[in-house]
């Protein structure tokens, strides 16, 4: 197949998908859930585990309301749960450098 034939095939498929989404035949939720690569990347992230989410949420609330001393204690707990979490590392660094 020539590249231009492939291209027009792709654009046909794109148009078709757009129509299906527009008419609620396919939902964006379906497109997300059927993508194994994305689902795997989300499921394997330690920060998506319930315990981390719970701790993080309570730390973040305290961080936003200005209770930084309490916030940092919980953020450190989050860091123990997932040492690779970028946002937690950044927030800990930010709070520590402003105290």
């Amino acid at each position, binding site marked *: 197949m020539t590249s231009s034939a492939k291209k027009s095939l792709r654009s046909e498929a794109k148009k078709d998908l757009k129509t299906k*989404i*527009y008419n*609620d035949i396919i939902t*964006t*939720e379906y*497109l*997300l859930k059927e*993508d194994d*690569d*994305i689902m*795997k*990347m*989300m499921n*394997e*992230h*330690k*920060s*998506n585990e319930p315990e981390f989410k719970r701790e*993080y949420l309570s730390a*973040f609330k305290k961080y*936003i309301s200005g209770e930084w001393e309490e916030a940092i204690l919980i953020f450190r707990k989050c860091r123990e749960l997932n040492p690779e*979490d*970028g*946002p937690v*590392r*950044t*927030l800990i660094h930010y709070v520590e450098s402003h105290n």
Partner: protein
Amino acid sequence: MVWKFPRVDIDSFDDELTIRPDNRFSNNLADLALLGFLKTVAKINKYAHILEYSRNEAMLERIPNYKVNMGFGLHVGWGIEGAIGSPYKIDASYLSPNVNISARLEAATRQYGVSILISGELQEILNETFQDITRLIDIVTVKGSAVPMKFYTVNLKLD
């Protein structure tokens, strides 16, 4: 990358040209913009010809543990679309404070150690399923804006 909202979905009563948050089509369009970048991040982590760079000896010698790593900033708002350049080289481009905010979000992905940063304005018009996968990581006042902006990300495990 630019996604254009249908004109009928744009609320132009205020100066800011906001998207009506209750519009299904616009919600779907916002979802698709995010989905597109989730797919991009997934592919960067999967395709053999991209992973090959992290095994390139010349590269590893200069930058230890080198790997291809891209960050994306997503925002919503008005922009001026037009051809920029000279008769020799013309580019379609978009200019606006909102475009600049996207660029700042992209730059900030490095600071937060995430692949994707989404502004609060965009997060607000996502469908619930997509809102549920976002995570609020900061609220900051960016240069050039008076109102604090929410920063959201999506947790994605990179290999």
